[in-house]
């Protein structure tokens, strides 16, 4: 195993009852890498991502994160989730808290960051996504694009080593997709390790260095993005790209 491999997935299988969603998947993600995962709906993309921070418990196989097997029952998963930020398709901002509390709750309660420091960090990050003036708003008062930018900031507040994005733009109105992708692009440029399940082929192609094509529970193709899009090899990928591009 190379020293800079942050996440090492071996023989990951996930079944829901009789249905096999992920079938013996092995791959690895290096620190600083930006990887997109594309593929048809129901192909296992989201399940794969959710296995990485154990929102779904794998049926078999192992996932090493910083060399520690997080599937092991003895591993403190809460500790590892702190290092893996997650952004959801449906934003999932805490509806009962305003934006500032959404951002500071985890650092204050989990990391014991002093409130003042947490709030300073929050405002610094809100500035970066242009939403400082929304600090006192409740999620129900924000647009989808604003919610998703706040959700990204909320995950960043824990200073994670890797960011997982689960179709971050799929629930957005078309005119709001850009503002979220811009934030993600800036994040990628800052050197953050990112794994992005997406339907945004342009993002996959232009921002991520590497793209996985996941279909039927298998990784059908795994290549540098420009190669994958310019010279797709498997017939399934070719037909998928024909439909979406």
């Amino acid at each position, binding site marked *: 195993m190379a020293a800079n491999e942050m996440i090492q997935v071996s023989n990951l299988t996930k079944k829901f009852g009789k249905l096999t969603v992920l079938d013996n998947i092995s791959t690895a993600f290096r620190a600083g890498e930006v990887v997109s995962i594309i593929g048809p709906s129901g192909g296992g993309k989201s399940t794969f991502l959710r296995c990485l*921070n154990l*929102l779904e418990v794998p049926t078999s196989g192992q996932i090493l994160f910083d060399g520690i097997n997080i599937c092991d029952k003895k591993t403190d998963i*809460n*500790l590892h*989730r*702190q290092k*893996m*930020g*997650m952004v*959801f398709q*449906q934003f*999932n*901002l*805490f*509806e*009962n*808290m305003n934006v500032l509390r959404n951002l500071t*709750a*985890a650092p204050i*309660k*989990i990391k014991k960051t002093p409130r003042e420091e947490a709030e300073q960090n929050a405002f610094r990050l809100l500035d970066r996504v242009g939403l400082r003036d929304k600090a006192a708003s*409740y999620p*129900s008062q924000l647009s989808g694009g604003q919610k998703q930018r706040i*959700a990204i900031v*909320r*995950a960043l507040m*824990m200073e994670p080593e890797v960011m997982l994005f689960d179709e971050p733009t799929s629930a957005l109105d078309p005119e709001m997709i850009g503002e979220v992708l811009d934030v993600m692009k800036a994040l990628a440029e800052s050197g953050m390790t990112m794994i992005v399940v997406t339907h945004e082929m342009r993002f996959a192609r232009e921002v991520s260095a590497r793209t996985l094509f996941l279909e039927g529970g298998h990784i059908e193709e795994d290549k540098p993005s420009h190669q994958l899009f310019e010279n797709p090899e498997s017939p399934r990928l070719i037909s998928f790209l024909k439909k979406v591009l």
Partner: protein
Amino acid sequence: MTFFTNAWQTLEKYYPFFLEGVENTLIIAFFSVFFGTLLGILMAMARLSNIKPFKWLATAYIEFFRGTPLMVQLMFIFYGLPMIGVTFPDVPFIENFQRFAAGIVAMSLNSCAYVAEVIRSGIQAVDSGQMEAARSLGFKKSQSMMMVVLPQAIRNILPALGNEFVTVIKESSIVSVIGIADLMYRTNGVKAKNYKTLECLFIAAMIYFVMTFVSSRLIALMERRLRRGRK
């Protein structure tokens, strides 16, 4: 018009009876709601627990108590259990303690099943993404529950819980069958004295209505307070 005159005269003459009935009805309802809610919270926790035996027991309990008449449960406890030697102790300085204890226990056990369902559905109505987002940040399950899920569930729970309180006030009239001098029992007593059946029942209905109406207004007020605090 004679109806209202008769009703008024009945009330004038027998109001101490009705008043005592109201007092006992409120005592029964208050303690039943109190213990019913307390037990209901525990029962809901067991029902939602990941520990299988807890879940099964709680589910069986809830189904059973919601699926059998309160009357049967009450008689089972007051008349049935003493047959196998299970009785409530007599407390000398509280009159009729045995009866009251049986009434409150039966009503609490019954109400607890309904409260548990109200709480369970209130919690499950909160979008599962809220829990997932909290867990993904590193919160423990219990922390996620306390900080994120429960504050949102309360808003679903409170109105339904209010209904349950009102129901308990009304249902408590059933304890008259084991000889507790609640409003219904006293109404029957007055009825037997003056033979003014319709008037007596009218008075009882009005008093019950005032009690439930006041309670439901108070609960609505609380709900509004809660909503204002949030948004």
